[in-house]
């Protein structure tokens, strides 16, 4: 069926670099102590720009990408689950968290060697598990100090009847202040437990990196609106992770610039992710990491996943333009805002963090449904396949309602149940059958 392969494809040039960077990231963390540096652990959304004020030799380990890496290693994951369950933890808890704890309890790092304990933990809380994850990690690791910043300060957006769209809620000042106050206290705490003097200049630079890298990621995603799509979602997973690893690091900014340029080039030359693109879908929520082959399976029918609310907005920062377009968020630097003091940086950080589209799902599922529809249209999709992920209670908040809303809007939607990090809750054959039925209903199998 060669005639179906109408688009040229080629591998990503920066693929190799991505692999190296990722390896280096974990290596840096493992080896931080050898060079007298500091290492800390935290969740992916945690505001890592703040600890960067402690110096350039500060490295960290984000829990979710680590948990996902464990999930890839099914045998290791199975051992993690066993040891966690033996301690009496429930099986339905966040799979990343269980993979992480399991790794701690086994005292085995998935990349080899014993689990490298952090000096402290620095967390941003919104789903029920974030703070507790590290509270328990601290307990089982023998009392590692941790600091949690509450992110659940309410919705950043509000519905505007006239525009029939979401606009930024002007009632934001005290929410920003809430985060700023916590970060201020956090900085004192950081100084206290590390005995280091805090450097505001480093904070300011890191904050700028954070704004830039996360807006850049959104830009990269935006380039995937092209037909054929230059990047499939499975590849996207390998790239978006950098923002989840250390979004406030200069390295990530540089890498994302390179990737953005490559995407532009691919679009210009009409390079496709898959040669036989016939239909474009978007997905939802974390994929089952141990079974990414389902993406390849879809592609065998000419179905490419262009991304998802998840890959776009977990780490990417966006805004809604006057005309309703979902687009990369304008950074404070682009707006010409000068960041001079610690207070300046913290305020902007708080404002940026509160505005993350993904964070809005904690206050109203209608926001996500609305944005999903925007993505569906702007990225020229034909259908949506949702993963009802039993491994994450946080991002599944509202999924059932999202699905209802999308179906209401006449969008073809299918969903399957699974688990991002616990293969016992995933059945490949059943899921493939569901995907096939969906592709059939899109009229792609005759």
């Amino acid at each position, binding site marked *: 069926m060669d005639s179906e392969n109408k688009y040229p494809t080629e591998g990503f040039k920066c693929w190799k670099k991505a692999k190296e960077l990722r390896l280096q990231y974990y290596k840096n963390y493992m080896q931080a102590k050898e060079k007298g540096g500091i290492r800390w652990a935290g969740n992916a959304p945690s505001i890592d720009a703040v600890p960067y004020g402690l110096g350039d030799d500060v490295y960290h380990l984000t829990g979710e990408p680590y948990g996902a890496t464990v999930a890839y290693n099914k045998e290791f994951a199975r051992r993690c689950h*066993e040891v966690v*369950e*033996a*301690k*009496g933890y429930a099986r339905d808890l966040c799979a990343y968290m269980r993979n992480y704890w399991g790794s701690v309890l086994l005292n085995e790092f998935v990349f080899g060697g014993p689990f490298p304990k952090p000096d402290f933990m620095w967390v941003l809380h919104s789903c029920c598990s974030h703070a507790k994850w590290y509270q328990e990690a601290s307990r089982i690791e023998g009392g590692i100090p941790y600091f949690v910043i509450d992110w659940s300060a309410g919705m950043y957006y509000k519905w505007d009847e006239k525009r029939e769209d979401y606009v930024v809620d002007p009632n934001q000042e005290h929410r920003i202040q809430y985060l700023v106050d916590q970060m201020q206290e956090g900085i004192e705490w950081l100084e206290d437990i590390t005995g280091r003097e805090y450097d505001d200049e480093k904070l300011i630079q890191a904050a700028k990196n954070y704004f830039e890298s996360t807006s850049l990621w959104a830009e990269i995603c935006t380039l995937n609106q092209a037909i054929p799509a230059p990047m499939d979602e499975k590849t996207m997973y390998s790239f978006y992770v950098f923002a989840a690893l250390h979004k406030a690091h200069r390295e990530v900014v540089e890498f994302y610039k390179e990737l953005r340029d490559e995407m532009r080039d691919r679009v210009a030359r009409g390079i496709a992710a898959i040669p036989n693109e016939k239909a474009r879908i978007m997905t939802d929520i974390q994929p089952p990491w141990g079974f990414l082959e389902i993406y390849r399976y879809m592609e065998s029918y000419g179905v490419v996943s262009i991304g998802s609310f998840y890959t776009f907005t977990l780490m990417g920062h966006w805004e809604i333009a006057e005309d309703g377009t979902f687009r990369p968020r304008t950074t404070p630097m682009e707006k010409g805002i000068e960041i001079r003091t610690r207070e300046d940086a913290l305020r902007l950080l708080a404002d940026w963090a509160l505005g993350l589209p993904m964070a809005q799902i904690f206050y109203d599922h209608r926001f996500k449904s609305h944005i999903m529809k925007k993505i569906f249209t702007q990225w020229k999709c034909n259908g949506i396949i949702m993963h009802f992920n039993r491994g994450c209670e946080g991002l599944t908040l509202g999924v059932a309602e999202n699905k209802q809303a999308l179906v209401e809007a006449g969008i073809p939607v299918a969903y399957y149940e699974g688990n991002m990090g616990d293969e*016992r809750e995933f059945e490949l054959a059943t899921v493939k059958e569901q995907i096939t039925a969906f592709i059939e209903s899109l009229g792609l199998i005759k």
Partner: protein
Amino acid sequence: MATEKKEYWRWHEYNWHDPDIDWRDAEIITAGVDVGSVSSQAVILVDGKIYACANMRTGHSSPESARKVANWALEGTGMRIEDIHYVVGTGYGRVKVPFANRAITEIACHARGAVEIYGNSVRTVLDMGGQDLKVIRCDERGKVLNFLMNEKCAAGTGRGMEVMADLLGVPIGEVGPRSLQVDEEPPPVSNTCVLFAKSEALGLLREGWPTEKVLAAFCRAMTDRVYALLEELGVQRDLAITGGIAKNVGIVKRLERKLGFEALKTEKDPQLAGAWGAALFAKVLYQKERAQKRQAC
């Protein structure tokens, strides 16, 4: 569609009594009747010594099963239920033993019975029965200190094994030994749920797995579940296994391998533990009652 099939799940039912004992000389006769979800046992003690017992399948009605199993144990002894001074009911149908003076949970009775059967070095009792798993921590007298029961999913219990036996046409007593006849341990089946297990087993057979290997995969999955429960409570040595599945070497051996030590062994029937423990409690309770009555007089 239903053709007459051999019932492979049927485990051995029996009754027994000690012809050397003359119960008519006895001071205290007590009994324990364990009406489980799958099996029922009766143990008759004469002055604390085992005199008779029976082990059979539980029928539809608990009271009836209790009467049946007790009468079967007494068969040929000349003793009648009325001759027994004190009866303790235990197990699933414990409150439905019509002739019992008292009901005590199988958790307490199994621990007590395990110490009687295996000796007082027992600290952990694993009871693998028809529909549930229990892990019990006890002291040297068999007094329960702590326990866990499997909740949620009943996958991988005695009933499950019976279904497997039937499906694969392997008599239940041979499931264990045959599961050990593999050169290499296969991965555990992913779904131990009785219903799905069936199609999973069929799938494996279709893939060309020999029966032994399928059995091994099942026993392994079940062992993993048992092990997880043991780990959760924390195993203290010595370990005694009671209940019907104690007779399944496919699970016992694998469990021992995983634990790195052996469970206690016995010549006696571990399935009797509950009823035996109950009969022992009956003796104490009877003595107490008698002492109180005497005081009252």
